[in-house]
């Protein structure tokens, strides 16, 4: 690897790789592309490490105290009952929340039955949340989605 030349000209290996007019030896090419690889893998890693910390931070900031599924269901039912009528008018969804609490119980039981696990290992809060804000055609879309995706 002609390091001296690089030092003399002040040109980095990478600069020489980029420059189409420079002829490089096999060794120089290998060194330059290894440099690119180290740099590239390093940047990809930094980017995803930053993401890792960002996600963890986000989770910590937004975390609520954990509860068992049954408790959550009860809490929410209580909350729904206590909601002021004004709020219900505003988003038109509050009114249905009571019914959805019952739905949670049913779905939880059904999933549990089909998976042969006990009820409190499954937290369905999230599943229900999704369904109640999406119109029917949205739901259908969601179901087909995973099939569509691989085709793009």
């Amino acid at each position, binding site marked *: 690897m002609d390091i001296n030349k690089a030092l003399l000209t002040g040109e980095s290996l990478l600069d020489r790789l980029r420059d189409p007019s420079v002829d490089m030896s096999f060794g120089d090419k290998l060194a330059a*592309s290894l440099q690119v690889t180290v740099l*590239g893998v390093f940047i990809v890693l930094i980017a995803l490490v930053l993401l890792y910390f960002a996600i963890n931070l986000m989770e910590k900031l937004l975390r609520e105290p954990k509860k068992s599924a049954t408790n959550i269901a009860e809490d929410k039912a209580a909350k729904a009952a206590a909601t002021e009528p004004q709020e219900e008018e505003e988003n038109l969804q509050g009114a249905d929340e009571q019914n959805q609490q019952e739905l949670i119980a049913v779905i939880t039981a059904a999933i549990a039955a089909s998976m042969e696990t006990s009820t409190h290992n499954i937290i369905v809060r999230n599943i229900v949340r999704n369904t109640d804000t999406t119109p029917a055609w949205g739901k259908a879309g969601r179901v087909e989605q995973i099939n569509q995706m691989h085709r793009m």
Partner: protein
Amino acid sequence: MVDVFIDFLGSTGFMNLTIQHVIMLVIACFLLFLAIGKGFEPLLLVPIAFGMLLTNLPLSGVMQPMTVMFEILTPGGGAEGVIETGMEIERVVQNPGGLLRHFYTGNQLGIFPPLIFLGVGAMTDFGPLIANPKSVFLGAAAQFGIFFTFIGAILMGFTPQAAGSIGIIGGADGPTAILVASQLAPHLLGPIAVAAYSYMALVPIIQPPIMMALTNSEERKIKMEQLRPVSKKEKIIFPILVAIIVSLLLPPATPLIGLLMFGNLLKECTVTDRLSQTAQNELINIVTILLGISVGASANAEQFLEFETIQIIVLGVVAFGVGTASGVIIAKLMNKISKKAINPLIGAAGVSAVPMAARVVQTVGQKENPSNFLLMHAMGPNVSGVIGSAVAAGVMLSLFGG
């Protein structure tokens, strides 16, 4: 009158057909067979193959560039005068240009691939990644194939621009490969696009042997802990966060990551369902048609039937294999370090190819242990692989672009 017929005959494609054209037509038909008969990524291979067919019908002119002449209208006052006062120029279209060339502009200007990503974002659920942020390391690991292949391509004599574009095939992400190739090595766009989509379709064939070779039966049987539920708030904040962090770190990745995350935000915020539905249906379909047929049309006989194409095909499968392997190896390492058990198979999903790579993990895992459900666990590395290859694309554009 006879002259006229002879003239006509000379203007037909039949009389201008070369053996190269015929070979390209056969290749196009074979790709159509793979897409339709074998179900390999038909949504993109059918348009690509048909574009390849049309462009290789001699004299069809579908990829002819528009030619424009500028005519100087007011030359009065002599040369010096004109240069001082400016001149009125009329733009005369001599040839309106080929249809597929007009579509191709959307690739050249880097418009179509980000719009595809907009739709992909609106279809993707990043929940599994948010629930298990360690997945990002697997998404990072699998990008190693990209850079490994870069080295190989450089040593084979490709320019760094070409080598970078070829490496991205290992990212297993069609639109990303097309964006990078159209910016850095447009003359190789045809073979690169074909290789990228072919290998994405071949995931169920390429990956399992590598996964089996690098893991033992015990590892493949590992069951993973149920993922925690992810709140709507987290899912809304996530795309905003990713767009900011990745774009700040690597500005050239902004169009891809920005629109991927914009699409995801449209989906997750639930108050813009109209837009999310259009992004993941009509808009992505329209762009897919235009992008596919024009990408295929860039594969003309002169540029496709080169030794380079074979090199690209070989390098592409290497990139893919190395990416899969490095994902699995890092997952094995993480399993040894981490408190919670990690099934090394899910490392293979880091190559992107959403959601097929994740499905392959599920299938391979279940073969070993029928009660094991790895699909959701594999979706984490899988979607982080999409981000990872966009970042790798940004690196290539940053080092060798513009």
